[in-house]
């Protein structure tokens, strides 16, 4: 039976892991390769690296990091942040990334996902979507959650999967960093609307939040950062509890 995935996320700035709250206010959280190895040993099913390096000339540090991570770990990982073109994706895959997440660039050019899926296969193209409730509607945001777009979440989710994204990383902006649980109602609705695996992001604070995101939110994978970085929730403990709740999970 396919298992639910636990995915630690590492935000990367100039080659270092950082952690912010609601996209703002960053603190240093360690060496990404070291952290990646620790997570892999602890039983993480996959890793996500989101590069938030602002300047283009620092991007080289990302490629070096991707290569070092790929050499060091034996589980899959996704790289996202600032991915704008077919050439960007090609480079990241060549350095050893398994999947690439695309966010703002797809909103600016919806054909980008189609081009990427055609070139590299849908299995390595993750559509990252940041959204939040505006009034009573879930709206998609770009530029790291700063800029509201015209898109409603379900419409955009359908568009990116029609274009060939093989997976979706949905971040509920208002939940991110709050540690009050995932956006389970919206996640369950999203799960009914698209037929690709969904990674839920934003809101993990306690083990019960993970139980809920799989049982109520119907997510295929759950992503979190700080609860793993600061060891609030050790992954082996989390996985044991999920197993006790009859959630299919890989125990290492």
């Amino acid at each position: 039976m396919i298992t639910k995935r636990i995915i630690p996320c590492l935000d990367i700035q100039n080659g270092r892991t950082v952690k912010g709250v609601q996209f703002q206010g960053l603190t240093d959280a360690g060496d990404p390769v070291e952290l990646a190895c620790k997570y892999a040993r602890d039983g993480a099913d996959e890793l996500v690296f989101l590069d938030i390096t602002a300047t283009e000339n620092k991007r080289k540090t990302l490629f070096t990091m991707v290569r070092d991570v790929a050499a060091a770990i034996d589980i899959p990982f996704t790289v996202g942040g600032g991915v704008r073109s077919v050439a960007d994706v090609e480079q990241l895959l060549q350095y050893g990334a398994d999947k690439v997440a695309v966010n703002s660039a797809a909103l600016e050019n919806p054909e980008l996902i189609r081009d990427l899926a055609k070139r590299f296969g849908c299995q390595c193209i993750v559509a990252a979507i940041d959204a939040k409730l505006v009034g009573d509607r879930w709206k998609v945001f770009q530029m790291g959650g700063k800029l509201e777009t015209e898109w409603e979440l379900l419409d955009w989710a359908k568009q990116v999967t029609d274009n060939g994204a093989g997976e979706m990383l949905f971040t509920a902006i208002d939940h991110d960093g709050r540690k009050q649980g995932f956006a389970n109602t919206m996640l369950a609705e999203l799960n009914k609307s698209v037929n690709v695996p969904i990674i839920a992001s934003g809101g993990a604070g306690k083990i019960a939040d993970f139980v809920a995101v799989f049982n109520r939110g119907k997510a295929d994978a759950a992503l979190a950062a700080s609860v793993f970085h600061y060891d609030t929730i050790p992954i082996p403990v989390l996985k044991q509890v999920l197993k006790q709740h009859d959630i299919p999970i890989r125990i290492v």
Partner: protein
Amino acid sequence: MEIAIIDYGAGNVQSVLFALERLGYTARVTTDAKKIQSADKVIFPGVGEASSAMARLKATELDRVIPKLQQPVLGICLGMQLLCRHTEEGNTSGLGIFDADVVRFSNQVKIPQIGWNTITNLKSDLFRGITAEPYLYFVHSYYVPLIPECIATTDYQATFSSAIQKENFYGVQFHPEKSGEVGAQILTNFLRL
């Protein structure tokens, strides 16, 4: 030991190279038929789309070299699928080593299958030393149905062949290079065949 990794623009070549390095082996990534023919072991990786992958194999005439190889050959993911007669993906003729037609999962399940799943009914030296039902990492939308050459099965929408073997040709649908210690064990077993 000479290990050749067939280069046809597949996405996961670097991952396979790194996995072999972690096991203490070096490998050569090549399109050169002579180097592939003279290697002790051949790995046929694969992430990507079937029809364009076959087109690239044909362009380098490797489609005629691979079926005649005598040493152990390991097809991974798309590599395994291309060892079969035909795949629904792009309505593509494969290398025909296995008399099997690769088909797409139905919409009853999420496509692609992405994640860790178990393999059972293990019947090969490829799985030597592996006792319990191990978890391996899968990423695919198409699968090889149950065939007589099946040496491991996995359940997703249906029970399918997650590994196959015919003489010196081995195929695995999962990614041993990305499947932790169990994956490393399977790669080691292949290199010791």
